[in-house]
């Protein structure tokens, strides 16, 4: 059970966003800008970074939600698994691998990102904006993962829920409805 009274039927972050609307507004706007705004990184790549950081933080709700979203955007069900297992061997670009190294460091601490990490990424063609966005997406998910788990919000176990949620995040982005997702297997 969640640590605070959340409206029944609202899973994970959605119940928290409804619990306090004035803090939800900038969080949702920031997420929409970072995940769906102008950026040289594709939506799928951004969702992959969000999934990987959430996975490292062991936040089940965020990992499953963004994994399902990335799978839709990549049109591939296997890339995320291979990234979680060992991203160096995953079928992704060298640039994205180098950005995942930065994301992995950010998950531990901002201070662990080194000049060498940044140089590697720039050598593979990453721009300042891509590095900035990778750092900020990773940092934002360190917020989300702590918010969701720190208040013990409800984490559905049924994969069907996350498929429906992914459809919503692909079609509406992050400033759409927060109404409960009705799903059945």
């Amino acid at each position, binding site marked *: 059970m969640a*640590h605070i009274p959340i409206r029944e039927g609202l899973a994970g972050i959605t119940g928290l966003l409804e619990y306090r609307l004035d803090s939800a507004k900038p969080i949702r706007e920031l997420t929409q*800008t970072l995940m769906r705004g102008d950026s040289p990184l594709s939506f799928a790549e951004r969702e992959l970074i969000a999934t990987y950081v959430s996975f490292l933080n062991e936040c089940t709700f965020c990992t499953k939600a963004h994994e399902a979203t990335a799978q839709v955007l990549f049109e591939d069900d296997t890339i995320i698994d291979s990234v979680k297992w060992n991203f160096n061997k995953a079928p992704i670009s060298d640039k994205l691998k180098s950005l995942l190294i*930065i994301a992995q*460091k950010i998950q531990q601490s*901002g201070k662990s990102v080194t000049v060498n990490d940044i140089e590697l990424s720039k050598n593979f063609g990453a721009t300042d904006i891509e590095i*900035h966005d990778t750092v900020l997406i990773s*940092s934002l998910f360190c917020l989300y993962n702590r918010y969701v788990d720190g208040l013990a919000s409800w984490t559905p176990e049924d994969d069907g829920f996350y498929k429906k949620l992914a459809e919503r995040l692909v079609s509406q982005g992050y400033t759409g409805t927060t109404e409960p997702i009705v799903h059945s297997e």
Partner: protein
Amino acid sequence: MAHISTQADLPGIRSLFTFRPETAKPMQELAHVLLHSDSTLTPGEREIIATFVSSRNECVFCTLSHAAAARAHLKDDASIVDDVLQSGSSALLSDKLKALLIIAGKVQKGGRIVTDEDVAAAKNLGATDMEIHDTVLIAAAFSMFNRYVDGLASFTPQNPSDYVEMGEKMALMGYFSPSK
């Protein structure tokens, strides 16, 4: 030197806000809502939580700037800030805030380690659901801000005296960009 081409004369998060104004706006609004808007936690208490989490994350810019803002709010009780930086708590804090700092300290490490007992302890000492929510979200938000500032190696003045005026402005005006 910062990892990306930011304006060199601006410190910490300000240089990052100028680099990407689209993301700056909601981040400033979030900080303002959490630390400066109406709440049953005083602005000084909220700045103490922000300072504590930033110090645990070893983010010098956020620690020194929010410590300065907390001191500006707390005035005669400013020594609380030094206590919290030293030991994570202070004899001068209310029992409720001590319990909330324990929750904040856990959130800094990972959301999953906050227990039912931690939350019950805070509630028994008078913390409301909203205060628990806000404590968790402030701690989570600073887990973001700290990583953003240090992950891009933004310019960090090292002397606490460089932050006094900044902290006074933060305490007085909050976090919306003054240019707007």
